[in-house]
């Protein structure tokens, strides 16, 4: 029985080197900075926000941005700035939650498919193909419409739609690594498939999984905001960014732009943060791209 540690070859750079290169890459850094700001907002919202997110003030409705209301107020007198800060909680929870669930479930399916092979592989992959045949936003729309709009259902729907991505990713990693010369040699010498999976495939896959996850996090927020905007996600009047845009929809015509402007900017910044991280990581991990 071959000791797997003798045969272990890391295809990707050691963590340390990768981390150093990430730090040198301005693109990735700015992405991390943005996400860090959002996380801080989410965690420390009660201390950052000057007003409670659901406290309306009838005497101060539809106020433009001012010193007392940095982002203005909406039709119920909610402070937009406070609600935007609290909104980070919803969208980040959705992003991390949906991606984490999709990752675990998808990787599990992908590993099983690549591991067991044959019929199981075919069946799992066909199911994934069928799920992927749907435009992802539309499938998520269907799931939430069926289950009823709520935060947990939203997270579930987005996770559900993103499972095939991870399943395919891990399965292809499994197959690629299995076919690599050093692994075939090890298997010929008695290495078990289980060890191949845990000792070779998984450690060598964290990089593409991580990159994919940052991109999926961005999509998750866009899908969540979009679904909430059309009434299929977090419900009015919770301070989710998509909901806030919906609430401000009718006031655009009369010139109260701030109600929709700030939450939209928050969405764009957060998604951009994730995309910058993912894009920068791709540069680091695949130097051919530059």
């Amino acid at each position: 029985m071959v000791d797997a540690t003798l045969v272990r070859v890391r295809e990707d750079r050691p963590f340390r080197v990768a981390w150093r290169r990430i730090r040198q890459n301005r693109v990735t850094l700015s992405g991390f900075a943005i996400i860090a700001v959002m996380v801080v907002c989410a965690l420390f919202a009660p201390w950052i926000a000057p007003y409670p997110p659901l406290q309306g003030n009838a005497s101060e409705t539809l106020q433009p941005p001012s010193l007392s209301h940095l982002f203005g107020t909406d039709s119920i007198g909610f402070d937009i700035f406070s609600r935007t800060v609290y909104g980070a909680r919803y969208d980040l929870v959705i992003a991390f939650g949906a991606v984490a669930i999709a990752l675990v479930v998808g990787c599990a399916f992908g590993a099983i498919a690549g591991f067991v092979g044959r019929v199981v592989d075919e069946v799992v992959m066909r199911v994934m193909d069928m799920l992927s045949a749907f435009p992802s936003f539309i499938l998520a729309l269907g799931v939430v419409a069926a289950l009823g709009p709520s935060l947990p259902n939203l997270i579930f729907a987005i996770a559900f739609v993103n499972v095939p991505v991870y399943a395919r990713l891990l399965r292809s990693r499994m197959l690629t690594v299995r076919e690599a010369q050093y692994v075939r040699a090890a298997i010929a010498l008695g290495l078990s498939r289980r060890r191949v999976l845990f000792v070779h495939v998984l450690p060598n896959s964290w990089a593409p999984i991580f990159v994919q996850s940052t991109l999926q996090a961005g999509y998750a927020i866009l899908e969540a905001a979009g679904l909430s905007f059309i009434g299929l996600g977090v419900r009015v009047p919770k301070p989710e960014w998509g909901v806030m845009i919906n609430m401000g929809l009718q006031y655009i015509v009369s010139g109260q732009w701030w109600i929709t402007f700030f939450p939209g900017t928050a969405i764009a910044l957060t998604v951009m943060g994730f995309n910058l991280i993912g894009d920068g990581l791709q540069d680091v991990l695949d130097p051919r791209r530059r």
Partner: protein
Amino acid sequence: MKLGFYATRRILLLVPVLLGVTFITFALTRIIPGDPISLIAGPYVSVARKAELRHAYFLDRPFYVQYVHYVAGLLHGNLGTSIVSGQSVASELSRRFSATFELTTTALLFSVLVGVPLGILAALKRNSWVDGVSRVVGIAGISIPVFWSGLMLSLLLFYKWHLASPPLGRIDPQIGPPQHITGLYLVDSLLTGNWAAFRSAFSAIWLPAFVLGFSVMAPIMRIARQGMIEALDAPPTVALRALGAKPSSIVLRHALKNAMLPVLTMIAIVYGYLLGGSVLVETIFSWPGMGLYVYNAIGSSDFPAVQGFILYATTMYVIVFLLLDLLYLALDPRVKY
């Protein structure tokens, strides 16, 4: 012809996929908490009527029977009946199909016609400021929520600066749509030489198409750039240079053709995002397509309409994907069929 055989084979392979799609769509109704009859018939219906409907809709029969009945209905073009209007969902969607198709296709054209040259330019001027700018533009495109950019832009361009037409639909009602040939106003007005209709239709479509197209420009630009870089670094380029081929030919005749193949694949993938995004964009711009239809259906809890839309849109996507796949096959001489 070989391509014909291959095409037939691919179409046949579609069947299990479509079957799976119908199954998943059907299964959506089964996960609805509560009584499905309320969803189909609406809340204001007597108990006796509900029992009647339950029987009529096979809801007192096992799951698989219901599914078979559902598929049988689909084969007859029956996508269910809208609670709100009482009309056939299929006919309501078909009426709105060309509006959505025109919007998504125009958006796609914009995305490709701007994104591909930008990607090529970025590849030719690698790591220069052009490259950096195009990258930023691309990332902005996929980060900005499409419903928000649509709102902000129509606010700016229509309400503030009066540069765009009011978001009131596909064409000025006073001018009226052109003679119906394809159902696509831009095409039909050109085919019939109806310039007034063309101008009106164009001024109505350009902003929503731009917004929608911009949201998917990044992946197209990225793949065009990557494809060009790989083609330009590849050995055939070295050989062509060694033989003194003109640089313009190397880039535009040889490298570009190689780079277009992955772009084509990306276009197929991106079309799904366009369909999803059309729901949001049509809502904002009151564009009378399938997306606006489902938005209203959601608002009035018209689940059969929502379900019908999902199936219709997905089938549309599957067919477009297949067509693009066949196009790829026709263009890449290396693929064996």
